């Protein structure tokens, strides 16, 4: 079956070869589904069977009930103003952590976006190619890859090692990881810019720094801010995960309440978390609309 597939998809003409690739992809996908399911069902330890056990569903129901306050003693935290205030403060901490993280990522990417772009370092947009430019370009690209490749959770684990717990290590971890992402995306925006306006400025007598300042920077800025806002939406979700590692905010409290079996408090934290995510999504969308020039 496989062999005939290869023979059939051998390109005889552009149209026909493409058609065959598509058809055999569908066959291959179907085969993969069958093998994958066979693997799950034949392996006793996959845990898949648990999904169909009554016990599992009873446990899930019990957990949801306790989130809603069943079986807890004392008044529900949902009716205590003090609990709302305390958890609200944690939510603010989480928001502060995300903003601080974007500040770190944004400031770093802003400084690096031009040395990290190939057309700036090789002189296409202004100035002559230089060894220093090439070296800095390489170093910035390695930095982008390194910071991006290591997940924020791992950065947080490392940083909490030598910084006292709180929102600073969390923000630092998120900031470093996102620096790599935002920086690389923005540098690629610069690499795709039309070089003609920059050349016109050069012809008007502008030196390389001035060409970059007037011809490159204003063009890259809107996309840079857009990327930053998109990442903010992601970061506000990740703050909770990073918070698990004693990094403060809603995440830390969430973990503590879970381990104390205070399920109603967990539910309250989830409500705050949802409000926060929705608010940041709306705000980010608004800001992105603002910066979309032309």
């Amino acid at each position, binding site marked *: 079956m496989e062999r005939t597939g290869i023979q059939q998809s051998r390109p005889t003409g552009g149209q026909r070869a493409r058609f065959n690739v598509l058809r055999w992809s569908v066959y291959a996908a179907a085969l993969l589904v069958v093998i994958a399911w066979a693997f799950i069902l034949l392996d006793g330890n996959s845990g898949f069977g648990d999904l169909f056990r009554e016990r599992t569903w009873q446990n899930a129901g019990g957990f949801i009930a306790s989130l809603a306050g069943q079986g807890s003693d004392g008044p529900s935290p949902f009716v205590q103003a003090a609990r709302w205030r305390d958890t609200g403060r944690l939510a603010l901490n989480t928001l502060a952590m995300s903003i601080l993280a974007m500040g770190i990522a944004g400031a770093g990417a802003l400084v690096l976006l031009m040395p990290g772009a190939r057309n700036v370092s090789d002189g296409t947009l202004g100035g002559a190619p230089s060894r220093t430019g090439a070296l800095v370009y390489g170093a910035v690209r390695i930095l982008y890859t390194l910071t991006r490749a290591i997940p924020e959770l791992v950065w947080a684990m490392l940083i909490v090692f030598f910084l006292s717990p709180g929102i600073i290590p969390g923000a630092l971890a998120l900031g470093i990881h996102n620096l790599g992402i935002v920086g690389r995306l923005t540098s690629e925006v610069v690499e795709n810019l039309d070089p*003609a*306006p920059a*050349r*016109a*400025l*050069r*012809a*008007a*007598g*502008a*030196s*390389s*720094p*001035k060409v970059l*300042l*007037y*011809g490159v920077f*204003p*063009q890259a*800025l*809107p996309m840079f801010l857009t990327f930053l806002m998109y990442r903010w939406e992601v970061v506000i979700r990740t703050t909770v995960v990073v918070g698990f590692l004693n990094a403060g905010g809603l995440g830390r409290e969430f973990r503590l309440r879970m381990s104390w079996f205070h399920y109603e408090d967990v539910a309250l934290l989830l409500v705050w978390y949802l409000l926060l995510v929705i608010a940041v999504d709306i705000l980010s969308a608004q800001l992105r609309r603002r910066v979309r*020039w*032309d």
Partner: protein
Amino acid sequence: MSAVRPVRTGEQVATPEPLITIKSAAKVYGNNRGLSPLNLAIHAGERVALVGPSGSGKTTLLRLLAGALVPDEGPNSVSINGKSPANLKPGRELASLVGIVSQRFDLVPHLPVMHNVLAGRLGHWSLARSILSLVWPMERRAAQQALARVGIADKINERPGRLSGGEQQRVAIARMMMQSPLVVLADEPVASLDPARAEEGMALLVGLVHSDLGHANGDGRSSERALIASLHTASLIRRHFTRVVGLRDSRVHFDLPAGELDDAVLDELYDLGDGYGDVEPLAGLAARDG
């Protein structure tokens, strides 16, 4: 008709030294000849139109004059006011010597019109002043005046991406006013404009070198300036230029006072040589370039 016309010089201004001297400057790109060895002298006060079919060397000549290309014989075969543009670093000296308006105007799309106009001063400003100007615009009044002169004072806070082609050209001309060079070069400046906008645009370009009103500082140097523009429209050339140089196969084909340019001369210059001679050449070229 195919005989090469005798080369004649245009109106000579009574200046002993030419402002621009090109001595056997040539440029070869790989196997393509951008420009054959070419001699040309242009005096202050002259407005020279370059005509010729695509690939005849007009753009190469303009880029050599702008210092963007180095002639094959070395930078010294092009001289403007005693200096070789290709020898000068970007900065005050080059900026006040020569400036170029391109066909696409090449404005920075996201930068407000005011800063695009002020960018003409970048060659004159220090780096600190250039940075500061992005926050608190320097010479704001001069930029306003330049935009008022080209008739789009109300667009000062717009972004060039939202302007029409004619308005973008006006911004580019206002930028050139701020730069205020001795020699203004223009590469098909009106090719993308309709006839009415082309007429207005050409008048504004001529104003850059022809009257003191055209300049931000009104420094009384108008009689010292020169304009060199490539274009294809005979009527515009007769109205706005003093001299016309026809290029063909990267050589000077004719060199006439602009008033003597008639359609027969242009027909011959643009003649494709295999039966296309009867086609109205200018209409065809203008449409394609637009």
